[in-house]
């Protein structure tokens, strides 16, 4: 049972029973002067990473033709309206999904690592402590995210916290986002909680402002006290506590920045109502939140997980009645593979609706889609085999003039996917020398 809360103004209460159903966030948005409107001259790239577990039916994903004349395959077909903003990239591999010697035998165990590798290119080390690698969203958040109030937001359709392979920390399966090799960031599935994390708690902006003032004084006090407390801790605890203090400072910085942004006159829609019953509605709401976040520039970086590896989710509107993981095990039976492609196509359809909303949202001299760079795909190729080459991935958006769409780029099979991750970081203005198992910057 989902238990959710929503603050409502009197006006909304009077609107009637319909309010119990989540309104599409964007429909209720009031066109507003956004922070961006004041800085229209310099559009900044918005970075998105979207994960689908279990791979896809590859022969219905991969276009036969390369370059600009590529055809939209069955799974990619929903993208037709935004084809000019899509780069399908094939031939990549995520070798860190493979087990290290002595860890396990790969195969089905690859599920336990695939999600964590997607944006990090790093190997999730088996053990009771998370050791993976920073993910590109967080590398970008550290370099270009600090000039937005919230460096990044992490979203999911599924709740974390279920059991997972007991030899590893469940972080590997619960999140795509790694602030550092040892700090996984939780992903939020409740759109209302996500809204509150971005914009704060309260019915009105004045209530939110009061909460922010209180939060500032609490955080300030905790910092002052903690510095004293730290000296008295056992040596072994001090390092954890240092990290903690750093995060307290980070949250304090966020509160100040949100306050600053809000005082510039950003207008917000009312928060969404909890977790919708309907999964498609839920997915759309999570996408709407990302549009809202990017539009207001409360953050420019988001990650979103359609499902955890081994997900049992059923998407009723897809027409596929099997649960996701089961459907991916098609046993090389053509009928089952085709059926799985139906599910894959449905997921691309949801993506397309997100991209269309971005395209419909003006941003500076163009649209949000023009200024976005979204990586969509999986760290597994054929879910039935649990292999990780060649991967189904695509890039969407114009990356503020850095990326030409409407192309299929085919690379030599075995090219590290990390080279693409590196290329993305270079294009969003967070260049680093290497990431994961990268060997160079992919030419895209």
């Amino acid at each position, binding site marked *: *049972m*989902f*238990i*959710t*809360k*929503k603050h*409502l103004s009197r006006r909304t*209460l009077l609107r009637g*029973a319909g309010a*119990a159903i989540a309104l599409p966030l964007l429909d209720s948005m009031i066109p507003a002067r956004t922070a961006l409107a004041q800085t229209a001259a310099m559009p900044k790239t918005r970075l998105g990473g979207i994960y689908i577990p279990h791979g896809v039916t590859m022969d219905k994903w991969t276009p036969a033709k390369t370059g600009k004349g590529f055809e939209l395959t069955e799974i990619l077909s929903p993208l037709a309206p935004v084809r000019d903003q899509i780069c399908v990239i094939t031939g990549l591999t995520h070798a860190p999904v493979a087990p290290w010697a002595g860890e*396990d*035998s*790969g195969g*089905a*165990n690859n599920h336990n690592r695939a999600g964590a590798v997607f944006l990090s290119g790093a190997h999730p*080390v088996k053990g*009771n402590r998370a050791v993976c690698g920073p993910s590109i969203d967080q590398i970008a958040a550290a370099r270009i995210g600090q000039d937005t109030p919230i460096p990044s937001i992490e979203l999911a359709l599924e709740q*974390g*916290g279920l*059991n*997972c392979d*007991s030899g590893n*920390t*469940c*972080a590997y399966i619960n999140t795509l986002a790694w*602030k550092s090799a040892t700090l996984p*960031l*939780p992903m939020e599935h409740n759109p209302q*909680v996500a809204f*509150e*994390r971005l914009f704060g708690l309260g*019915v009105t902006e004045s*209530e939110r402002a009061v*909460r922010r003032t209180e*939060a500032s004084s*609490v955080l300030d*006090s*905790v910092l002052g*006290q903690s510095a*004293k*407390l730290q000296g008295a*801790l*056992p*040596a*072994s*605890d001090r390092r954890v*506590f240092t990290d*903690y203090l750093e*995060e*307290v400072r*980070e*949250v304090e910085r966020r509160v100040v920045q949100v306050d600053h942004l809000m005082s510039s006159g950003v207008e917000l829609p009312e928060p969404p*109502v909890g977790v919708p*019953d309907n999964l498609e509605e839920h997915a759309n709401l999570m996408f709407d939140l990302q549009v809202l976040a990017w539009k207001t520039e409360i953050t420019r970086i988001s990650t979103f997980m359609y499902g955890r590896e081994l997900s*049992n989710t059923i998407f009723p509107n897809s027409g596929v*009645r099997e*649960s996701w993981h*089961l459907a991916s095990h098609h*046993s090389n039976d053509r009928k089952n593979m085709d059926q799985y492609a139906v599910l894959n196509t449905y997921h691309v359809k949801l993506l397309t609706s997100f991209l269309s909303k971005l395209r419909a949202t003006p941003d500076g001299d163009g649209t949000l889609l023009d200024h976005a760079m979204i990586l969509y795909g999986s760290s597994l190729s054929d879910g*039935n085999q649990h292999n990780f080459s060649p991967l189904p991935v695509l890039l969407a958006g114009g990356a503020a003039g850095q990326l030409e769409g409407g192309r299929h780029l085919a690379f030599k099979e075995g090219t590290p996917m990390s080279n693409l991750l590196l290329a993305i970081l270079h294009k969003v203005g967070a260049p680093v020398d290497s990431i994961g198992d990268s060997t160079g910057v992919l030419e895209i």
Partner: protein
Amino acid sequence: MPRVALVSIGVGGIAALAVAVAVYAYQQHRAPSAAEQWAMLDRYCEGCHNDAERAGELALDRLDPSRMHADAAVWEKVIRKLRGGLMPPPGEPRPGAERLEVFVGFLEDSLDTAARAAPNPGVPALRRLNRTEYANAVRDLIELPVDVEALLPGDDSVGGFDNIGSALSISPTLLQAYVSASATLSRLAVGDPSASPTLTTYRAPRDWQSGNHIDGQPLGTRGGYQVRHVFPLDAEYEIRISARSEDDVDLSLDGKRVALLPSKGRNARVAPLVVTAGAHTLGVALIRRHDTEGVDDLFAVHAESSGIASFTVNGPLHATGTGDTPSRRRIFSCFPAGPAEETPCATEILEGLATHAYRRPVAADDPALATLMDFYAAGRAEGSFDAGIQRALARLLVDPEFIFRIEDEPAGLPAGSVYRVSDVDLASRLSFFLWSSIPDDALLAAAAAGELRKPAVLEREVQRMLADPKAEALVTSFAVQWLQLRMVDAVSPENPKFDGNLRTALRKETELFFSSVLSEDRSVTDLLDADYTFVDERLARHYGLPNIRGSRFRRVELPPSSPRRGLLGQGSLLTLTSAPNRTSPVKRGQWVLNNLLGSPAPQPPANVETNLEETAPAGEATTMRERLQQHQANPSCAMCHSLIDPLGFALENFDSIGGWRDTEAGQPVNAHGTFIDGSELDGVAGLRGLLLERRVQFVQALTEKLLTYALGRTLEPYDMPVVRSIVRTAAKDDYRFSALVQGIVASEPMQFRMKLADEQPQQARVD
């Protein structure tokens, strides 16, 4: 490392003689000598596990038996393989079961003796409260039920538990959530007269079926569900109900009908409903007019199903006051009669709250109290006395002393010293273990008086705590995670007989069952073969148990012949170890090995097609067993699957949702298997018998899980002597649940910790 003399001699040709002597000695019921024991390795193991072959990267001949302690990790692995029956591999010579037992016992005793000389209690990581502990602590601190899932992000688990320090990371997301939660909860607890209307939606459980009466709902109703809702103020509220039925809707508050809403219309509304502040049980149900059956079909977008989809609480509206709530009674130990009394009263209130929240005595001159008083003063300056307390409470709920489990370390100890934790820290270790929450007054008082470390006092406190309703946390947190019951909420069986009500019932049966072992202090071996279980009508029908009517769960006796005796017959476990459309003997076998026997099978070798079960052509009338025969055809599969599969085969009379079946694919079910040690397993009774024979192994497996949970860290090889000692001691008390708990509480790692060197970072210990 030099080979030790004994083993070298064995290789020199005397081995055969030594073994002969060993066998003779054994037959004469004389304990074999150490030399005879070590000769076992040479005879049965070192043919492969030697320095030249290094099978499994293991060279036993390189180890020094006189320094077993140094290689404890390897020896513990050897013991686990031998106990699990995994070694020697099938087809290789094996000692007899009894001789093997004597040898493993020898290895264990040797390790345990070495460990006693140099105990290592380990170093717990600085650990924050997990989500459950946070919610329970708030409940116990300010009597406020907390919907923690909407407040804090989920915790990652490791080793099957979500209270393991190394996995409880601290992200900015989490800190931000703490700050928001503290503002929300402090206002709810104190009462915020200016609270804006809030809308809370409660959805029906997944796949919920509304044809029958639901336990706790008024008689004469069907379907619906109940929730515990915190009403923030004495005020009017509006309830909106989204129903999919033509029948009238019954709305009840604390079990009493407050509205009967006419049918027709998919939505109903009750307003104004005057409710006093605090937590109340709200129930919605349908008046039973038609015997409508039907599941709210996920796929039936327009189908008329018969349930209540959701209901929503709006409010407070026209509030009249903060009311008299358990939270306020708990917080306000005094009320100032005039301005002069305000500061002393605030001090008294906050001293009490801080003592509980920080789990230590907080004196009047404590700087922690001064901090809270600053916040009180700021709130008081801007508003009322209550507002001051609320602000201080908000500050307290994000205090590191509340959020973290900080333990004191005596000054001046050299690195590597082992020291006893303070009584106050021990109190917290106890309460988080047994209650997943903070200590209560009595426990804290015993600790503060320095009494808790006295064994008699400690034992009495543990018994008291086990008898407290809060010990239910051992069911809802420990047992649920040990048995992986959360997965029951996530499964999607493709079976028309399965619905949300059965899902709930399956989980409830196992929770009630474990709870009975705990509250009646039974032997934990009853978990394997108790002569009773708990069912309602729904579950009884599923199990084919006659004459159970109604939605109330009750205890039923099970005859010796019943397949439902013990955990192995419970639908929860049988369902979560199945695929959506069929049983999975492999999953079931692994589940038994992992959770009941504590000897997980190794991972399949690299580059092996493990999709065997799925590769059988769909629709072909083959049984699962026939498909799994492929495992036997391939030697690299057979090695482990001859261990795993028979355990699962024995459960083949249970279908994928735990119902009984005599046939599969038109053929009689064959629930027979031959276990790796040669014993024949016939059906669930056979498997139950096998586990009862190996009861020590079962108890040890449970103890390992319970100790992991108690310590909040994954176990290391140096913990195994402790585990064995707990099991041995508990054996004298027939393995009663409390005997295991007392053993854990009395153990070194529970009462001591080791000081690390200043520079030494906490390493991830990879086994």
